[in-house]
């Protein structure tokens, strides 16, 4: 009995020793000095002007799922060039992001809509004033990621489809029920439309995509879309969960139509409608969306860049259905140690190199005018 326990003890000790050595080897080498990565970060950031050395530390962000793919790509690139920095982003939804930012739990938030300046029932103050209070300084909304919203459809034998805001609104609130309706045929001359019934799919979870799509319908075709705008869908159809749910549903249903992020429509190879806002059909592309963002008005003061998108824009070549994701930051950060890291990360995020790369995963780059404003605001963070 004694021999057995001694042997057991020896084997346990051996396993413990081996595993300790193995895990110590696994631990990543986060102790590289900042100076060695300074030169590589300066060349790779392609636009960073202020910081010379790559800051170290950890940043925590939370919020919108629409920008999840974009921010994760930027984080991966940033952490490769600045190995002393760690940025964590948790995609829990715009509502959760705003809540956590207003409560001071995260360093920056991601939200598909800017902080509200109108009070919500049951809370004191507005989102903007509450965030200002938590920050101790004005909270700024920095537009960073432009996500085009595609009107995706699945119709056999119809590779090209043109839609106007009015027809789109009528389709999504059930006024037009079959694909060969005269209203659709009138704007698609020369295309044989089948008599398939239209099956609408919408987002059953509350989402910024629904919010911006309904805002587009109301802004561009107010008489055809009397329903309210908001994160909850107010039209007709069947609800599916998350963008992947609606895209999959359209892919497996002939005659299905939905609104979803561009990357999902591309991945599932759905037909993407061309939108005619009054200046001719526009194919969904990065530059087309950037044109629409350039047409936006800034309603915030100074460095608080709140954009009011013009959904009824008649700028030729502009694709009007999009959502802009804002990064919510405190103009005077609560912890000064993180300011350098925050500025460096946001500068990388807004840089031309990263923004152009985002097109490959279904986002549109910030137009130059907005990018300049964002860079000014980032430089003013303290």
């Amino acid at each position, binding site marked *: 009995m004694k021999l057995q326990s001694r042997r057991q003890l020896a084997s346990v000790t051996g396993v413990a020793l081996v595993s300790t050595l193995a895990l110590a080897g696994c631990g990543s080498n986060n102790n590289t000095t900042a100076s060695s990565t300074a030169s590589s970060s300066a060349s790779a950031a392609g636009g960073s002007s202020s910081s010379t050395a790559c800051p170290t530390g950890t940043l925590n962000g939370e919020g919108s799922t629409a920008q999840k793919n974009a921010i994760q790509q930027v984080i991966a690139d940033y952490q490769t060039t600045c190995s002393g920095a760690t940025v964590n982003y948790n995609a*829990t*939804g*715009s*509502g*959760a992001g705003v*809540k956590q930012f207003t409560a001071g739990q995260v360093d920056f938030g991601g939200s598909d809509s800017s902080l509200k300046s109108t009070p*919500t*029932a*049951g*809370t004191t103050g507005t989102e903007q004033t509450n965030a200002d209070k938590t920050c101790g300084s004005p909270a700024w909304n920095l537009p960073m990621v432009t996500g085009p919203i595609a009107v995706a459809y699945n119709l056999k034998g119809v590779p090209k489809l043109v839609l106007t805001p009015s027809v789109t609104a009528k389709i999504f609130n059930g006024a037009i029920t079959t694909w060969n309706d005269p209203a659709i045929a009138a704007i698609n001359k020369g295309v044989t439309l089948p008599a398939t019934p239209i*099956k609408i799919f*919408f987002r*059953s*979870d*509350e989402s910024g995509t629904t919010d911006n799509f309904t805002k587009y319908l109301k802004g561009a075709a107010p008489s055809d879309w009397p329903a*309210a705008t*908001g*994160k*909850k*869908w*107010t*039209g*007709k*159809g*069947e*609800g*599916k*969960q998350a963008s992947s*749910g609606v895209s*999959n*549903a359209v892919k*497996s*249903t002939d005659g299905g139509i939905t609104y979803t992020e561009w990357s999902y429509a591309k991945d599932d190879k759905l037909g993407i409608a061309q939108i005619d806002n009054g200046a001719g059909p526009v194919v969904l592309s990065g530059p087309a969306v950037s044109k629409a963002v350039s047409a936006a008005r800034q309603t915030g003061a100074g460095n608080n860049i709140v954009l009011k998108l013009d959904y009824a824009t008649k700028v030729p070549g502009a694709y009007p259905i999009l959502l802009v994701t804002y990064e919510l930051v405190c103009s005077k950060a609560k912890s000064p140690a993180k300011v350098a890291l925050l500025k460096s990360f946001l500068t990388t995020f807004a840089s031309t190199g990263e923004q152009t790369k985002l097109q490959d995963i279904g986002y549109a780059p910030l137009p130059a005018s907005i990018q300049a404003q964002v860079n000014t605001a980032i430089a003013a963070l303290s």
Partner: protein
Amino acid sequence: MSTITGVSTVDELPDPEGHGPFEGDRASTGRLGDRLFGGTARGAGVLVIAMVTLVAVFLLSQAIPALAADKVNFFTSTQWNVDATPLQFGIANLLWVTVLSSVIAMIIAVPLGVGVALFITQYAPRWLSRPAASLVDLLAAVPSIVYGLWGLQVLGTHMAGIQSVLERLFGWFPLFQDAGIDASSTVLTVSVVLSIMVLPIVTALSREVFAQTPTLHKEAALALGATRWEMIRTAVLPFGKPGIISAAMLGLGRALGETIAVMVILSALADGTPWSWSMFNGGETFASKIANNAAEFDSPQKAGAFMAAGLVLFTLTFVVNAIARVVIERRKVFAE
């Protein structure tokens, strides 16, 4: 020394070891062990009851302000406007879909689970019963998101045939009417997936109960000339009935609260869709509705409305379990 009858001097004097009269030699671990164990068991019971009570208190405290501000009847309205200030929300749709999906799931799962348990304990040879039991338990280890994806993409494609047959035969009955929803996303498909999720719970518990059947009862039945099935019907099943009911209640709890699989499979309905009793309709259950909107609880009032829905689910499960307990207790009065 006096000699009074019935009184002995030994009762007055200490033991040879020096212990007092009537104390014994303390050979057992005695009262300390009793106190510790009994206290721990009592504490665990109190803790669990306290947790359930606190959950109920939390739900009530969050839900009551929203319920008070509700402008329509909470139980009969099908509206759900919780963003704007005239708060109007009602759970009629949610309640029906939750109850229907769970009931259908139990109708499928309980006979199937009891059958599997009977097979494993009574019919299967010994070399088969252990692996079979492990395989059924493995069903419980599959994550619910996997069930949801499987149900939507694999099972859903096969439900179209069943749905068209049922609609053709029974379409006149409101429960089987066509509602325009694709067959892969109906309440029936969700119920089938839920029944598979509930099956391992029912099987495992029933199996344990059937294995405990007194061998004497079984042998007595067989000795009186009963066939295998008659023996099971007269000796095993009556003995195991309280266990089966408990197993079914646990399974029902899982089916009522299942969130992810329902979210992925079931199509939500747009506001203003006409009411339908049909099992071929879409909709949302309490759990899936709360989960779908949990990230966007802007205000306490909005959160309160969803908490009210959660409170109804909590109460429903509680009531069903209480009824089951009553049934079991009544049954026990006649047992043994």
